[in-house]
């Protein structure tokens, strides 16, 4: 006869700590998952392990020195961050950027979107279980793009190449021919990754209808970028709040239907193809010569007192800069609205009820950059 208390064997939920050091947390992100069996009952994300005060230090630096911090905060889409920062300061100072500098900026930002999405494809393959093959394929292409960035700006990762008012110096003279070469290799790279992952039965089984997120929940949580478009909201800053010279190009904006992990992957894959077409159009229209910095640039950049909220479509979403200035050559307050921070706040609602292995896939599909989350 089974004793009374033994009949009611209740299953105890086990808290598991996916700690700051874990192969699939894309950096120092910690989440405590409470799981019963394999199902996730509760998720508490802990961030702040990479909070290193980019905003406070930018307040102590003048406008030329602050560009390095924009790079280091969003270290996978550095040109988008620099573009956002420069647009904010130029709007406050009322500077007109010359034509040639605008085109070069757009070409480099879209190339940077390609290299950031390649990094996502590589990391997402590792989360789904591939033993590194997607990483090596993706990084082979990323290295070609980084070669172009290195020839142009002199550094592989931290470019600091955009300056308030235009560019730091002229690009190399075989720039257009080099970019054409890289675009051919990138198209082959996108086709390789597409064949490796998209039609793979196990990959589809692991990604379809996992972590589905409806459109109005996405808007309520302030998601942006591929996550928002995957949920079915047709919103892209390059078209709906056009900045720089994006209205001159024609490209498509992919929007998903189910908002699950597979749609996010497809949206990013489609965005890579669109970026290639944008770069080709920009290369044709690139004026062969012309100034890259306006003639009358003040020696010390001083902004009139005032505030501006400039936003840019970075590969992860809307990367915004809220710049408050009390005059002088230093920003008084500079808040970086990072897309990874807002996308990550919706992790709990996406993951509760899924399996433990899906929690890893959902976190991977968000493509977060930890320095961007903690600034």
């Amino acid at each position: 006869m089974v004793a009374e208390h033994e009949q009611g064997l209740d299953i105890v939920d086990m808290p598991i700590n996916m700690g700051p050091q874990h192969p699939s947390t894309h950096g120092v992100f910690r989440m405590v998952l409470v799981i019963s069996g394999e199902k996730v009952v509760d998720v508490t994300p802990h961030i702040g392990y990479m909070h290193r005060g980019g905003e406070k230090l930018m307040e102590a630096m003048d406008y030329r020195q602050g560009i390095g911090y924009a790079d280091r905060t969003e270290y996978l889409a550095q040109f988008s961050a620099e573009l956002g920062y420069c647009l904010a300061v130029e709007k406050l100072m009322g500077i007109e950027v010359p034509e040639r500098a605008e085109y070069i900026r757009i070409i480099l930002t879209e190339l940077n979107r390609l290299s950031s999405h390649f990094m996502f494809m590589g990391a997402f393959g590792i989360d789904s279980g591939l033993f590194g093959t997607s990483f090596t394929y993706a990084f082979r292409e990323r290295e070609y793009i980084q070669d172009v960035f290195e020839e142009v700006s002199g550094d592989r990762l931290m470019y600091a190449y955009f300056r308030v008012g235009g560019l730091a110096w002229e690009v190399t003279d075989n720039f257009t021919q080099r970019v054409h070469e890289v675009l051919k290799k990138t198209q082959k790279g996108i086709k390789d990754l597409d064949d490796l992952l998209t039609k793979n039965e196990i990959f589809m089984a692991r990604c379809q209808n996992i972590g589905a997120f409806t459109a109005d929940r996405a808007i309520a949580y302030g998601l942006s970028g591929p996550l928002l478009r995957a949920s079915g909201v047709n919103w892209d800053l390059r078209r709906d709040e056009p900045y720089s010279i994006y209205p001159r190009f024609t490209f498509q904006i992919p929007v998903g239907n189910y908002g699950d992990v597979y749609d996010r992957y497809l949206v990013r894959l489609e965005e890579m193809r669109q970026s290639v077409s944008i770069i080709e159009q920009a290369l044709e229209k690139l004026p062969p010569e012309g100034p890259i910095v306006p003639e009358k640039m003040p020696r010390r950049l001083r902004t009139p007192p005032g505030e501006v909220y400039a936003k840019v479509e970075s590969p992860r979403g809307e990367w915004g800069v809220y710049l408050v200035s009390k005059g002088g050559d230093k920003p008084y307050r500079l808040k970086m609205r990072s897309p990874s921070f807002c996308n990550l706040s919706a992790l709990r609602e996406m993951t509760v009820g899924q399996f433990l292995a899906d929690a890893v896939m959902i976190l991977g599909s968000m493509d977060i950059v930890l320095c961007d989350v903690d600034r």
Partner: protein
Amino acid sequence: MTLPDGQEEEAQGDAGAAPETPPPAEAAAPTPKPAAERPARPAKEAEPKEAPRIPPPAGSINEILAAAVPGVAMLAYMVPTLQGEAVAVEVGRDDLVPVMTAARDDKRLDLKYLRCLSGVDWQDEGLEVVYHLSSFTTRHQLTVKTRVTYDDPVVPSLASLFPAANWHERETRDMFGIVFDGHPNLVPLLLPDDMTDHFPLRKDNPLQEIEEWQGENLREGAGEGEE
């Protein structure tokens, strides 16, 4: 990238003096350099101290907002954005929630997308919380601001209205000490869990000095690189 100390001193002094019309209380620049030693700089034209507050043109969304929330004191002015000008509204602290619910639920405004919530530390004019709202259907953009003083930094929380505000409010509390009452889980987000009395982003929190030599006594002979 690290700031050369000499240039930083001079920049600190320079920024402190330039913009405000120096009333005596504020004029105490951190390093009172004797004026003679500094090179005489050409007299600069008087820079405008405060941004000009241009009232928004008729028919802009702050009228709809005022109609939706009658009897709320609102100071409205234009704020530049990349696509031109947008409306900013300054609201008192206790009628922040009705304004926000109206902005979100009113069909003509439909501002459902809370883009960014940031705290600004205006030193003597108190702490300010800035909300950037925008809408997908009507393509409106609105900035809502509230001011609180230092000794009573409490702002009603919007976490129930906008789930996006949940993490932003926790971060602003960590950085500025503005307490959002009504917030479901106001535990430190970016700072360690037991640090609730240190606010890094406030203006009175100085940067730390660079230490000359580090890690010399950790391991005997670690420093000299012996053998």
